């Protein structure tokens, strides 16, 4: 006899946890578990990004304040300064126009450079290795990686009132072998979660062997 009606079974709908936990990336993302739409240089075909990190947004605070000051200086600080300074010559208007335009372009350039350095300095943990890509300055790139089976020790450090308040710190990954560099995740958000994520990955790898 064909089934006419079948009562739906009540219960939890099981989802693939890896899909459920995927993080959607934004331009200001500094901590992402299983991020969507991210690929990095030298990433292999079967390699998946488990954790994506940048430095905490707090490192952009200094440059941001400086940019705000530089942007407001021509309209507030310089007129104030010109009242108190007695100059022997009068600056022609065309020099003021060109100088102001150049000032704002340099301010924009500084802001862009600061953001680019923060944006492209990344730390990536995949199911195979840990990668650290540093742009020390614009023309100097440092690429370090360590395979998961070479990791010996993971620690983190978080000190000071700002790091406690904003939850950021440094995570250190010690590797075996003299040729493989130790990886340092400096000023990253949620360092305890970073260490936990890497530890879980290592345990998963050991149990699959």
């Amino acid at each position, binding site marked *: 006899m064909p089934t006419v009606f079948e009562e739906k079974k009540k219960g939890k709908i099981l989802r693939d946890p890896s899909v459920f936990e995927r993080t959607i*990336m*934004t*331009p200001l993302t500094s901590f992402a578990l299983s991020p969507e*739409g*991210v*690929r*990095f*240089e030298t990433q292999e075909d079967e390699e998946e990004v488990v954790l994506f990190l940048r430095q905490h947004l707090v490192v952009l605070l200094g440059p941001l304040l400086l940019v705000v000051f530089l942007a407001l200086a021509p309209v507030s600080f310089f007129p104030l300064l010109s009242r108190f300074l007695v100059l022997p010559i009068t600056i022609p208007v*065309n*020099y003021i*126009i*060109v100088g102001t*335009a*150049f000032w704002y*372009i*340099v301010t*924009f*350039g500084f802001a*862009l*450079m600061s*953001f*680019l350095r923060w*944006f*492209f300095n*990344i730390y990536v943990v995949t199911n195979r290795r840990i990668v650290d*890509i540093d*742009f020390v300055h*614009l*023309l100097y*790139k440092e690429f370090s990686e360590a395979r998961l089976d070479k990791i010996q020790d993971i620690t983190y450090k978080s000190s000071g009132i700002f790091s406690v308040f904003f939850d950021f710190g440094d995570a250190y990954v010690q590797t075996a072998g003299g040729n493989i560099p130790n990886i340092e995740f400096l000023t990253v958000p949620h360092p305890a979660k970073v260490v936990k994520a890497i530890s879980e990955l290592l345990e998963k790898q050991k149990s699959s062997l």
Partner: protein
Amino acid sequence: MSPDVTNIALIVFKFFVLFGFGLYIVFAAVIFRQEQLMANVLEESFEPVLRFAAGLHFIAAISVFLLALLIL
């Protein structure tokens, strides 16, 4: 100061200003090129915005140079 000395001083000053702006154009070009190389390191959806910003910065640097050439 006689007018001739003032004119010569202004011309020399203009030369140094334009030289400085020219150096900045080179710096802006380096930023633009470096952004392209950085984008090869990390593929992300926000990259076109950064490329536009770097390109805009480069064009603005050239524009200020031309402005200085014309009005100084």
